[in-house]
């Protein structure tokens, strides 16, 4: 865009090109600011005993039953993203002795420490319990989250 705008003889095009270019620069310089504006607050979060922070950003917020959707799960420790971990989730409804209706799977690490968890659907109102297992470099840790729908 910058190249096209710079060589354009049309002054208006040049200005709009420069404007867009400077916006892109802002995005590059302040990626976190841009993300914060795009993001909602974490839908769910937990800090484990070891100080690991797990935040869930749900595509469906607030959470609702009977709708298939995805989550982005952010993992960090001491302010640094926890990248390259193997993340799995299990869980269920303790009051009904059954598990989750779907098997959600991490399909991608979108950026360091931010994982895409696909295939989430809850099918009953009530108390849910999720257990995340995080494994990295022979270390394994679990993070449990309780919530009600």
């Amino acid at each position, binding site marked *: 865009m910058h190249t096209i705008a710079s060589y354009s003889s049309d002054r208006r095009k040049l200005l709009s090109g420069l404007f867009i270019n400077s916006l892109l620069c802002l995005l590059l310089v302040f990626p976190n600011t841009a993300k914060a504006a795009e993001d909602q607050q974490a839908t769910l979060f937990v800090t484990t005993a070891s100080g690991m922070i797990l935040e869930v950003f749900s595509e469906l917020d607030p959470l609702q039953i*009977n709708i298939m959707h995805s989550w982005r799960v952010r993992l960090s420790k001491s302010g640094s993203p926890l990248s390259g971990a193997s993340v799995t989730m299990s869980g269920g409804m303790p009051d009904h*002795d059954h*598990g989750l*209706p*779907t*098997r*959600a799977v991490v399909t991608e690490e979108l950026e360091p420490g931010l994982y895409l968890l696909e295939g989430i659907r809850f*099918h009953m*109102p*009530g108390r849910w319990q999720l257990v995340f297992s995080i494994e990295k470099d022979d270390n394994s840790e679990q993070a449990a989250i309780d919530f009600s729908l």
Partner: protein
Amino acid sequence: MMKKSLLVLLPAAALALLVWNLYSSRLPDSWTDQQLASIQSLSLYNLPPLAPDPSNAVADDETAAEFGQLLYFDTRLSSNNTVSCANCHKPELMFTDGLALAVGMAEGPRHTPSLLGLSYSPWFYWDGRKDSQWSQALAPLEAGVEHATDRLSISRLIAEDATYSDYYEKVFRAFPDIESMSLPQSASPLGNQAAQENWASMNTEEQRVISRIFSNVGKALAAYQRKILPGPARFDQYARQLEDSNSTQQGDLLSNSEIAGLALFIDQAQCISCHNGPLFTNQDFHNTGVLAVSGQLPSMGRYDGIRIARDDPFNCLGEFSDASPSQCMELRFARDENDLVGAQKTPTLRNIDLTSPYMHGGQLNTLLEVMVHYNDAPVSMLNHNEAKPLGLRSSQLEQLRDFLLTLTAPLATEDKWLQSPASLKP
């Protein structure tokens, strides 16, 4: 002395038990905010529009639905010209048959489920062995106890019937020239031995052409079935009036017994756990300790169903599906663990009064029997019963039953879809 006191105590205890059972709890004057939210979550007025089915490109095509309606009522889609889809899914019985077990060419192993609002479900059959309505529609056609026909015979019928050929070409473009392919008369990989041998004698391309026609028949049948939708009932009128007031009494829309039943449904009896949303079903699978069908081994339920669905060539990820893999979320992320043994699909409760008997094998004849079953929550024959005993009195079970009667209403479907199309009538 002992005898005398027993003579007094026993009748007193019996009387106390009788009074306890018949005593109906007093209704509150108004609903709490949480109760109101639960009630609104069940209202048909809050049912979202039917989402597209990405695996069926003609799911919402009106011409496909007309084609599907013709096929649905046509008994020529059976080996002896006596069985159509409407034999078991009768419009006048809310698309059920009133029987414990379905009867096509012979008695089948399962109770006929209602088709009301079924297009909203991601899974089909009691055990969820099918992941789309079009794929579901194919299985009975080739099942020996149902239509007992085969995909090649159906392809031939469409080729030979001018109305069907026209419809096919309008909806799916050119109909393949199967007459010139020198194929056997009937063939299917799932039919009787002769049909299977014939199928094996065909080359892969011929098989694909016939399976493609067959899958399109399913897609037209699904387009028709997407028209079958429940209409607002007394309960929904009641819920709508509650938008302006939280008083439990809303004129004479619901009786005291029905209102008490509603309160039990959403709170103490926790029916809403599984029978949730405007269709009164979460479209998922639960083991609720229902006895095996007489003469059958207990059903493995969803545990087997998901495995069958994954292996099905007509599933969302298969070559006959119109969806991209990223649109097959339910199939890709389905669970298959041991806790699904014996789990059957939650049915809708819309018009439930008109669709007896109940459960996957029609094991229970009346709604009151169903209430008693859930009140007792018996031990499951396989795995465990997710439901817990409710400890409700018999008067409360009747109130729950009375509430379910408020879900009966005419369908939202236009009349023209509820009968055999004129061109099929003799």
